[in-house]
């Protein structure tokens, strides 16, 4: 029976993609001076899993690279080799090569064999370089895969090593598991030490590294105490253990069995790995590959649409049964209300599928910043904040390009060279912060650097050269906006990174197309912040629904401070048709929603309705509505995709009954309300 392996290719590619991404993330997070063993192990595991998969599908080129990568990693994680930046660079390069090879197998993209060759050579060099540096190993095979133990164990005549492994305090279950695993390497005996810890004595043809590798799946190798010696050592330590001669005799069959035992050990390794993963997932992160599945976007969209229809159907049923006699049809009505609850939950759950954390975008920057900084000879400390902020997938994909540009700009132009930074009394390493947050009703994504800031004079000079209408007295904010003009670049030197003057205008255009705005805050010598504010298109929003007449509107909860029913005496007339309301000794302008939207309200008297106190951009106002309906999470839908922008409305949402409700643009309402004075009037 032949199995068509190609059907599994996709799974392998998807998995490998995730593993590579994970590997890159870990590599970038590695602290070269003090690498976390856990991370090294995770990187090793990723390389190992890819190797295994590639071998299954006979992608020999991938297997080769991962093998070399794995061997080198293995030695580093065992502490035989100190991790250097060069290693990390090579690993990253290897990751890129693997990506390329993967593409080659997947889509038939061309693979740059030179790059593959050079990375392989570097990997080889690195692993050999250290071998040469370790003169303690006399006749160690130069092959990178050969795990040359730095402790230089002495093999006995049969090539067998005698290891004594003292375990830290671990549960008996783990001891048994280890004993079984180690038993596959050779013959093992177990003894209990005085302090109830367990020690193994293992006679094996394998190196110390393999023992550590096996143990590290269960416990931290640092806690292990492994001593190695040929016969005398254990014999001396354990006088009652037996005579060396007899031991050799019993070791002989083991040696013969060593060959077949090896594959068994290899087969057991992944099993332990899997077990180990499961265990760790319970107490720590990991397990990402098991907690997510990959689904095509079109399937999700179809699901969202279908649920939308279900909700409408559900609403129809509700309408029909509302006419039924509640006593005769009690059970039917109960079932229907349960169905309606379930439908709502389902809709909510399905809607959340499209939401993705900003991490999806942010995670690609550490690598880029690192490479870029390296190329430019700068030091950059990259920080991300609010990576968990959720944004619709569609929007998240569109924000990638503009953000990439801004980050590049910050590294290239913003952050100064180390010498210059030192001269101006700053830390040599510049700081680049990428942050995302829901603010008010918007998503604000900021790129902040602590570099030199924008140069007002240079921008103005350049603007004059280009014949733009500028004056020297322009406020900063307007000057900064000039850099968004097409073909505008003030970079002293055009680098291949940026400075050609194309870009900022494209950034601005892209963001405007998404309905967002770009703001710049900058201070000479202190730094620059570029702030992208995106409207809530499709983002999930906590909303408060309010009712005026027969119409229901959604207020983004972020703007709402409180709601109350004012006493008649607190409402004062100002001028002809302006009203203010006194709330906690503060007079706030009153905005009657019914007046702005021409609705027939239930109440025109503020004392009968409800006022909702809103705050935006530091200004407060009181919005008069008839009643509050409730609070709910809503998915913001764009009105512009099929219609146009409507004044005072930032979007729309679909309510549980399938109806549409409009979301108020609070900032615009407060701004445009002619009753709104600049500051609340204090009594």
């Amino acid at each position, binding site marked *: 029976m032949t199995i068509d392996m190609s059907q599994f290719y996709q799974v392998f590619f998807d998995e490998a993609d995730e593993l590579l991404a994970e590997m890159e993330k870990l590599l970038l997070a590695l602290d070269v001076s003090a690498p976390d063993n856990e991370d090294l192990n995770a990187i090793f595991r990723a390389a190992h899993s890819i190797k295994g998969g590639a071998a299954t599908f006979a992608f020999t080129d991938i297997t080769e690279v991962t093998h070399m990568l794995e061997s080198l990693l293995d030695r580093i994680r065992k502490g035989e080799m100190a991790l250097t930046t060069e290693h990390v660079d090579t690993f990253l390069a290897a990751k890129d090569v693997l990506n390329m090879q993967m593409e080659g197998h997947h889509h038939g993209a061309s693979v740059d064999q030179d790059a593959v060759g050079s990375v392989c050579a570097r990997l080889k060099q690195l692993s050999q370089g250290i071998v040469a540096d370790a003169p303690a190993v006399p006749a160690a095979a130069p092959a990178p895969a050969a795990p040359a133990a730095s402790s230089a164990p002495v093999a006995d005549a049969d090539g067998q090593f005698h290891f004594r492994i003292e375990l830290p305090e671990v549960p008996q279950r783990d001891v048994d598991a280890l004993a079984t695993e180690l038993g596959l390497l050779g013959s093992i005996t177990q003894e209990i030490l005085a302090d109830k810890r367990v020690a193994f004595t293992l006679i094996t043809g394998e190196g110390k590294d393999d023992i550590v590798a096996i143990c590290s799946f269960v416990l931290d190798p640092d806690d292990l105490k492994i001593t190695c010696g040929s016969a005398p050592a254990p014999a001396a330590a354990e006088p009652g253990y037996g005579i060396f001669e007899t031991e050799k005799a019993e070791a002989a069959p083991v040696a013969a069995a060593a060959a077949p035992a090896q594959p068994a050990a290899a087969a057991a390794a992944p099993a332990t790995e899997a077990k180990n993963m499961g265990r760790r997932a319970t107490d720590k992160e990991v397990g990402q590959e098991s907690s997510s599945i990959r689904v095509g976007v079109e399937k999700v969209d179809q699901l969202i649409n279908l649920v939308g229809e279900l909700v409408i159907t559900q609403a129809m049923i509700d309408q029909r049964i509302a006419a039924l006699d509640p006593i005769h049809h009690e059970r039917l009505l109960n079932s229907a209300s349960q169905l309606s609850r379930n439908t709502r939950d389902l809709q909510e759950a399905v809607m959340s599928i499209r939401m993705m954390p900003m991490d999806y975008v942010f995670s690609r920057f550490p690598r880029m910043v690192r490479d870029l900084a390296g190329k430019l000879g700068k030091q950059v400390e990259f920080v991300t904040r609010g990576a968990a902020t959720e944004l619709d997938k569609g929007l998240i994909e569109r924000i990638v390009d503009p953000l990439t540009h801004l980050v590049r700009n910050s590294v290239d132009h913003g952050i100064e060279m180390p010498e210059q930074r030192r001269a101006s009394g700053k830390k040599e390493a510049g700081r680049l912060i990428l942050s995302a947050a829901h603010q008010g009703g918007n998503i604000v994504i900021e790129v902040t650097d602590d570099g030199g800031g924008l140069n007002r004079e240079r921008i103005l000079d350049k603007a004059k050269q280009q014949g733009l209408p500028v004056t020297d007295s322009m406020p900063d904010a307007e000057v900064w906006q000039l850099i968004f003009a097409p073909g505008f670049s003030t970079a002293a030197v055009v680098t291949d990174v940026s400075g050609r003057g194309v870009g900022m205008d494209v950034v601005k255009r892209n963001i405007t197309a998404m309905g967002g705005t770009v703001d710049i805050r900058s201070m000479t010598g202190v730094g620059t912040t570029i702030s992208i504010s995106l409207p809530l298109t499709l983002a999930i929003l906590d909303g408060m629904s309010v009712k005026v007449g027969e119409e229901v509107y959604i207020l983004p909860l972020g703007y709402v401070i409180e709601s109350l029913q004012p006493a008649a005496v607190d409402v004062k007339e100002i001028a002809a048709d302006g009203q203010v309301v006194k709330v906690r000794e503060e007079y706030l302008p009153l905005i009657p929603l019914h007046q702005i939207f021409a609705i027939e309200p239930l109440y025109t008297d503020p004392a009968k309705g409800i006022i909702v106190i809103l705050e935006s951009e530091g200004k407060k106002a009181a919005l008069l509505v008839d009643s509050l309906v409730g609070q709910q999470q809503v998915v913001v839908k764009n009105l*512009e995709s099929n219609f146009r922008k409507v004044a005072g409305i930032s979007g729309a949402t679909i309510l549980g009954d399938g109806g549409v409700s*409009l979301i108020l643009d609070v900032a615009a309402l407060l701004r445009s309300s002619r009753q709104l004075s600049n500051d609340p009037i204090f009594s």
Partner: protein
Amino acid sequence: MTNTTHMNHGSKDAGDGAGDEYLAFTLGREEYGIDILRVQEIRGYEPVTRIANAPDFIKGVVNLRGTIIPVVDMRIKFRLGQPTYDEFTVVIVLNIAGRVVGMVVDSVSDVMTLSPDQVRPAPEVGTVFDTEFLIGLGALGERMLILVDIDRLMSSSDMGLIEKFAA
């Protein structure tokens, strides 16, 4: 809230040679035709969410399986017939250049194939439509269809459905 008719979107050229297919509908006592390939589906009228301060012919927006689409009432826009809303009121859902719009009409009659020689140039006067938005008049026996260039009409600034961006 009612049966929806999904129609296949073929390419615009599909009808060439044999003639173009038009969906016939009525507004008041006049019969109109629009390119069938622009029609996404036909639905019953359902309550809309009013858009404040919008022209009266823009009835509001509705949820079409998760997408929010505007609904315009041609009877109000062109002051034809009585704008009544009951179970027989029909909304033609149009897909024009990727944008979806609902159009309220009095009724939808049928789909007709008109060969090029059945389409006569539109006279300068005679309908409420500006001739700019007309393809011509379709003659089919006793019937006469006013053929509307729905793409142009719906994207016109008259309708106010699409924001005009400064170039």
